[in-house]
């Protein structure tokens, strides 16, 4: 046992390698956090586009665009999307930090899934709510904004929280574009110390702990959202 602690000390503390893990964690959190925020925003717009007019001429365009976009994003691996944005889209742009590129890629990727989550959440709100809103004289937009979307968010929240967690783990692929996130930092420590067990298990524990904390926070927040459901 003592031996094992000595090994941990050698591998993680030696050469200040724990600092690599910490800065890697910083990258992971940054990419996840900003991608999630942008993804939710884009996702809501895509969901509204997809729920819009499907019948007549030019007004169909938002529906067709959103459907095709969601199809393409969901139909291709996120690693491939990340590499396309890095190697093709931003090929000519010099000095673009890899973190930005990762955030753009994951925002786009996440928005497609979030759009479907929102669409489901909005469709689950009884149509009588829309009728009640418009019958009071509220415009379609006001009815969406003040009546349907608040209820849809509540419906969608558990799936959104799940998407956030999936997104955090998905960012482990940013090593492909030479970004040193938590996973890549673990990988780097293996290459320096020839020990796989300690760095990998440490990385796994860090991911797990963060996600565990997030889950607790999400549950607490969901409880607050459900306030109006309690008798």
């Amino acid at each position, binding site marked *: 046992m003592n031996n094992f602690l000595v090994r941990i000390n050698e591998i993680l503390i030696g050469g200040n390698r724990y600092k690599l893990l910490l800065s890697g964690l910083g990258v992971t959190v940054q990419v996840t956090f900003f991608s999630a925020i942008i993804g939710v925003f884009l996702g809501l717009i895509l969901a509204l586009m997809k729920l819009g007019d499907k019948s007549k001429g030019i007004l169909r365009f938002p529906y067709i665009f959103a459907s095709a976009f969601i199809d393409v994003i969901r139909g291709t691996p996120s690693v491939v999307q990340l590499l396309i944005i890095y190697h093709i889209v931003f090929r000519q742009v010099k000095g673009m930090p890899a973190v930005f590129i990762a955030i753009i890629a994951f925002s786009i990727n996440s928005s497609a899934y979030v759009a479907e989550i929102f669409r489901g959440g909005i469709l689950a709100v009884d149509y009588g709510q829309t009728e*009640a809103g418009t019958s*009071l004289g*509220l415009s379609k937009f006001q009815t969406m904004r003040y009546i349907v979307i608040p209820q849809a968010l509540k419906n969608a929240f558990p799936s959104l929280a799940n998407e956030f967690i999936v997104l955090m783990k998905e960012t482990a692929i940013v090593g492909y574009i030479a970004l040193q996130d938590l996973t890549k930092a673990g990988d780097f420590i293996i290459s320096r110390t020839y020990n796989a067990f300690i760095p990998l298990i440490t990385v796994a524990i860090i991911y797990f702990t963060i996600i565990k904390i997030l889950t607790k926070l999400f549950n607490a927040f969901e409880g607050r959202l459900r306030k109006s459901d309690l008798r």
Partner: protein
Amino acid sequence: MIYADNLKKNFGNIEVLKGITEHIAKGEVVAVIGPSGSGKSTFLRCLNLLEEPTSGKIIIDGDEITRKGADINTLRQKMGMVFQQFNLFPHLTVMDNITLAPIRLKKLTVSQAQERAYSLLKRVGLLEKAGSYPIQLSGGQKQRIAIARSLAMSPEIMLFDEPTSALDPEMVGEVLDVMKSLATEGMTMVVVTHEMGFAADAADRVVFMDDGLIAETGTPHQIFQNPQNCRTQSFLSKVR
């Protein structure tokens, strides 16, 4: 006040309204009765354009609302609607349910809207429920709040779509009482209902609909005591 001219409505190939022509005067309380599927609710929902008529005209206060480019949202502010399923906003308190539309449509300031909401809550006998959520209310209470919510916009016309059909029998009375008091105050009301008692007591006029048409209309006395149309006679013999 409300004039419907040869109103028709199709759902796909099914002709639900086959040409309704009807005039409802200001302050008149009209009960619309008839068998299921006769088009009563569709007719009512056409009046504030929740359903878009396939053809025909609706004129409210001299303004043809079925013309292209009519300002439907402003029109709807003048027409309150009460639904069979209440449709209260479950994520908002009773107070917010009532004040949402007047505040957002800038008809009233927040404090004016709240003041008005309190007086409406008092009127429907639910002053103590201002801070409750809809799920904490009984069906009859929900429907009284729904009426208060509509009244908060100070409508000139109130439309009721089977307001007591989803209620337990012992709660029907409390809702009908609120409606009767509105009727006596001179509100223009169109009420689709299965409550023959309400139609007989509170309505100025009863409209009997059958198969997408108005089969007969008259005072409650004429319709209930001395119906002329054979379909009215057979309907009334079944519900009484």
